[in-house]
């Protein structure tokens, strides 16, 4: 087993990886940019190495700086977390060249699955259902029109190198096709350095259901059931749950088998996620493979009792998977809410700033994977995720109630968060009925405004706070107010 691992990431995911390493007796190295000198992840590891300016391209995205931090500290392996370099095939290849173990799949697997057209070809060859659409790149309008007619409208333009909704367009009518293709291609070229786009059928009423997989170096591959992640804003997930309210046991088994087949077809190693679109008739289609630890992995950990980061590290160290498919079982229901620094009243606009007060929820079945603390200045340079609040309970209904209780006791003052918004989503009839489709927020919460019922109570709290004198702890005065044992006992002699 490794003696030391460097975590090439920041925030809550870096903190989460450090915790498993500590439990495994592995020393940890954190890296931090100038903006993150006092970030929780930098304070959590055994060593912390500065890697450059706040600008991601000069720190967390700089392969040279990460590699030199590995050399400098003598770490044997790198865990990339999610985002940043996690799905960067060049980084994985560089690690392989430098004799550093990359905790993830081989560089070539990342490369082929990162190209969506190639991934679709792999899946089609191995019999995994794909969304009807193109299997090759096309660069001229005549080819787009011909293919669009075969696919039918509405259709979706996607960037082959894409992700995160960039270079994506929904086209409703043939007249809009050429211009939309050109715009998507420009956007993709700017974001990914590759303007290749392709067309596939757009499935308006659908769910996003993904299967977690684990594969060892010998090709032994299992799945750890599904996660439903249909509640999204700007094509980014904000609530995830498992099991999916839409899956029957037969459908779950079929999707699990398809995910394992997809992983085998791609030569997959380590933890990964096979994403599917599920239509209302129960037909599912391959979407993409995420070749990394997923943001929402904790809900799978809650229902299976497995530590995915531990399995990632063991697989990377060359150990065979100790689990068979039959060993894996699930229990209860888990939900995750992503707590971002953002303003749900202003179209989820980022809301960086200083956290003035912070109190995390606690209690039975509650887990909060968190990367911040009171007094921390949330930087403007990075993804606005503060924490992931996760609950586990016996049933979906009880998990929803538990999440509502947890959210109500989660105090984040100083930056805006979607906590109020999430409370209303969880309490809503369509969410409770499991009617969770990817258009959920647009359909049910487009004109959301904060609940006002507690406003009068808040006004009273304002007055009470203004009237109750505040202690002014200042140096010695504060010590006198709360004398410790060393003060009160100083005249004692034994």
């Amino acid at each position, binding site marked *: 087993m490794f003696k030391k691992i460097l975590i090439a990431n920041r925030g809550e995911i870096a903190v989460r990886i450090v915790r498993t390493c500590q439990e495994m007796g592995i020393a940890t190295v954190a890296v931090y940019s100038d903006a993150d000198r006092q970030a929780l992840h930098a304070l959590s590891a055994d060593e912390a190495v500065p890697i450059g300016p706040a600008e991601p391209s000069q720190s967390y995205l700089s392969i040279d700086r990460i590699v030199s931090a590995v050399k400098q500290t003598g770490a044997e392996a790198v865990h990339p977390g999610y985002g940043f370099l996690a799905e960067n095939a060049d980084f994985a290849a560089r690690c392989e060249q430098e004799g550093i173990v990359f905790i993830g799949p081989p560089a070539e697997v990342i490369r082929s699955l990162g190209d969506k057209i190639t991934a679709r070809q792999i899946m089609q060859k191995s019999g995994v259902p794909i969304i009807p659409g193109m299997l090759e790149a096309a660069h001229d309008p005549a080819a787009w029109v011909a293919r669009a007619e075969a696919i039918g409208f509405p259709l979706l333009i996607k960037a082959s190198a894409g992700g995160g909704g960039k270079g994506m367009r929904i086209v409703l009518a043939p007249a809009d096709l050429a211009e939309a293709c050109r715009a998507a291609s420009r956007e993709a070229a700017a974001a990914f350095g590759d303007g290749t786009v392709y067309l596939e059928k757009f499935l308006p009423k659908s769910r996003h259901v993904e299967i977690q997989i684990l594969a060892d170096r010998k090709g032994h591959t299992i799945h750890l059931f599904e996660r439903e992640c249909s509640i999204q804003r700007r094509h980014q997930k904000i609530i995830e749950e498992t099991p999916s309210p839409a899956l029957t046991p037969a459908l779950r088994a079929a999707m699990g088998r398809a995910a394992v087949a997809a992983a085998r077809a791609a030569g997959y190693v380590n933890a990964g996620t096979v994403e599917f679109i599920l239509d209302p008739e129960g037909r599912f289609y391959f979407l993409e493979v995420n070749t990394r630890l997923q943001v929402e992995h904790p809900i799978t950990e809650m229902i299976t009792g497995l530590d995915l980061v531990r399995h990632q590290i063991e697989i990377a160290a060359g150990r065979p998977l100790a689990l068979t498919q039959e060993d894996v079982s699930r229990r209860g229901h888990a939900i995750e809410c992503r707590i971002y620094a953002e303003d749900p009243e202003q179209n989820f606009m980022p809301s960086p700033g200083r956290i003035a007060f912070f109190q995390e929820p606690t209690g039975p079945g509650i887990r909060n994977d968190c990367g911040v603390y009171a007094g921390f200045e949330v930087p403007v340079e990075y993804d606005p995720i503060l924490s992931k609040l996760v609950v586990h309970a016996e049933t979906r209904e009880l998990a929803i109630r538990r999440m509502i209780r947890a959210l109500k006791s989660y105090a984040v003052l100083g930056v805006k968060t979607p*906590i109020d918004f999430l409370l209303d989503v969880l309490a809503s009839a369509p969410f409770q009925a499991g009617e969770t489709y990817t258009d959920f927020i647009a359909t049910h919460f487009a004109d959301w405004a904060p609940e006002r019922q507690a*406003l009068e109570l808040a006004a009273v709290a304002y007055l009470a*706070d203004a009237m109750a*004198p505040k202690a002014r702890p200042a140096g010695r005065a504060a010590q006198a107010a709360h004398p410790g044992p060393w003060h009160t006992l100083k005249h004692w002699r034994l």
Partner: protein
Amino acid sequence: MDYKLKYNEETIALAVETAGDGRLSATLGDKKMDVAFERISENRMRLVVDGRQTLAFVAETSDGKIVMVDGRTFLLADERATGTRPRSGAASGPKLVTPPMPAVVTQILVAQGQTVEKGQGLLVVSAMKMDTILTAPFAGVVTRINVAEGEKVAPKQVLVDIEPSAADAAGEEAHNG
């Protein structure tokens, strides 16, 4: 004593009586609440309102006091403290080129001396991986660019000065009159 608290665009008027013994009674419209209160720490207040206990969390900011009760968070400000300031947003806000949130300037799209149309993109700011284009609030000439690419900027900071064109200024006066 009367308080006027501002919440977004509305005013909450409260008549408050207190004996200074950790109790107060507040009247909002026709509703009266008897409240016992106690400070637990700088950011925590215990409230007992008409017999029901609640823990409230509070934090002071430059814009007012953030209050969280029953899982809901509100930004409240004393109108006396804010009353003399120009109302943000309504009059001055949309006329200034200022970022909606703390951000980094990633691209400047215009040059000093350049004539711009209303709605034309002036610069791109980025916060937490999201790009926002700031546009000209009216037609005119760029008289000064106050920032450089890569610079950190905050709301209320004016990033670009624009001298309104004559036609636009006249229209504006007519509108104000």
